[in-house]
């Protein structure tokens, strides 16, 4: 799971990069609409939405990134504790007649307790990650809507239509790219859920 969480974090890092480009697109749109004046009045209203979309996506992707890194760290700790537990059990198997073998029982108990605490922490973080990815996904659905509206408004902006068309296309492209990264993250998350169910069984 620690590798999966790191991979999820990597996908969300790329999503953040794309969202930063979207922010540049919003700034370009604002500059063009300022030059176009009344001709692009409809588009001007949309630039605020583009900026918000970008800011929200960056914020959410950064939150997902933090949670994914925390999951990766918790999974690494869990892996270490589970490995130690396995080794203690192996020592019991190798030395059943060792005079002081029962003195390891306490270590084993402690390890099992730590394993439970870490497993709980892990579940909470996974739930949080699930929620954040879903929220980011919802945000990105707006990209398609904003792009369509931008296209319509661009067509009404006379000499500035071509430039604003590029902006509309960029919004759609960025939205699609972010969606692809999110889909990869979701596939990884659901495959790790399956792994966890398999391990628990």
């Amino acid at each position: 799971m620690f590798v999966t969480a790191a991979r999820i974090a990597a996908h969300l890092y790329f999503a953040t990069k794309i969202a930063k480009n979207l922010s540049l697109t919003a700034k370009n749109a604002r500059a063009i609409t300022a030059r176009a004046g009344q001709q692009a009045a409809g588009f001007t209203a949309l630039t605020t939405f583009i900026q918000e979309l970008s800011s929200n996506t960056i914020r959410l992707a950064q939150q997902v990134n933090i949670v994914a890194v925390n999951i990766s760290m918790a999974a690494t700790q869990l892996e270490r504790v589970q490995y130690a537990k396995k080794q203690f059990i192996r020592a019991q198997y190798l030395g059943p007649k060792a005079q002081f073998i029962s003195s390891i029982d306490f270590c084993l108990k402690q390890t099992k307790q730590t394993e439970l605490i870490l497993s709980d922490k892990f579940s909470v973080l996974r739930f949080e990650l699930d929620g954040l990815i879903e929220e980011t996904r919802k945000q990105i659905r707006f990209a398609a809507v904003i792009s369509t509206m931008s296209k319509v408004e661009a067509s009404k902006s006379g000499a500035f239509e071509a430039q604003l068309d590029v902006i509309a296309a960029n919004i759609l492209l960025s939205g699609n790219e972010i969606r692809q990264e999110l889909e990869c993250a979701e596939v990884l998350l659901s495959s790790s859920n399956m792994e966890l169910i398999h391990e628990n069984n």
Partner: protein
Amino acid sequence: MKTTELVKNKHAKWLVFGRDADKPEQIIDTNQYMIVTNTRALLMDPGGIELFAPMLAAVLRHAKVEQVTDLFASHQDPDIISSLGLWDQALPDATLHSPWLWEGFIRHFGMDNIQYNAIPDEGGTISLGSYTLQLIPAHYLHSSGNFNIYDPENKVLMSGDIGAALEGVDAPLFVENFDDHISKMEGFHRRWMPSNKAKNDWVKRVRTLDIDYMAPQHGRIFTGDNITKFLDWFEALEVGIINSNT
């Protein structure tokens, strides 16, 4: 994992663990040592992560887990101390004595609970209650921060990689014929020990100690005259030389 009692007096006994026929084939055989007093135990160069379970099982034949209060790592190599992350979960109240130079590196093996006692370059002592062991500097032999442990009561020098021979798990525990043994040590010492000056300083220092057993971390243990023969041989050996066979 074979366990042999090396020597004992009324205060402490020395145990050597090794010659593990069940270890993974590609890892080198190592000797781990433990000194057990009436109340405490010190585990010396406790070994790699692969050996942890058989080592723990072997240790528990002679001491309770809470009796193992101290660990010693002569230097930072993985065959010496990569099991630390697991001992850290088994012995949360223990202290690890190791060169100050390696603290930030050794902690990478995982050390959330165990205390690190950073040994200064000039050495010092480890007290197991009223039983005291000396930390003998052995820097650059082979590691740049490196110590041996000397027990003046039982006259044992745990010499780390000095005197090591890389042999199979069926090798005898003690050096029988020193001349025959040279070929098993020579390449290792020439290649792994980088400094003639450091080597000769160590020989001079160790000649002042009264030693019955010189116990390296790999290969056979030296006893009696073989210790003086080793010191003479090592003093004359040119080290810091690359030999393609080693």
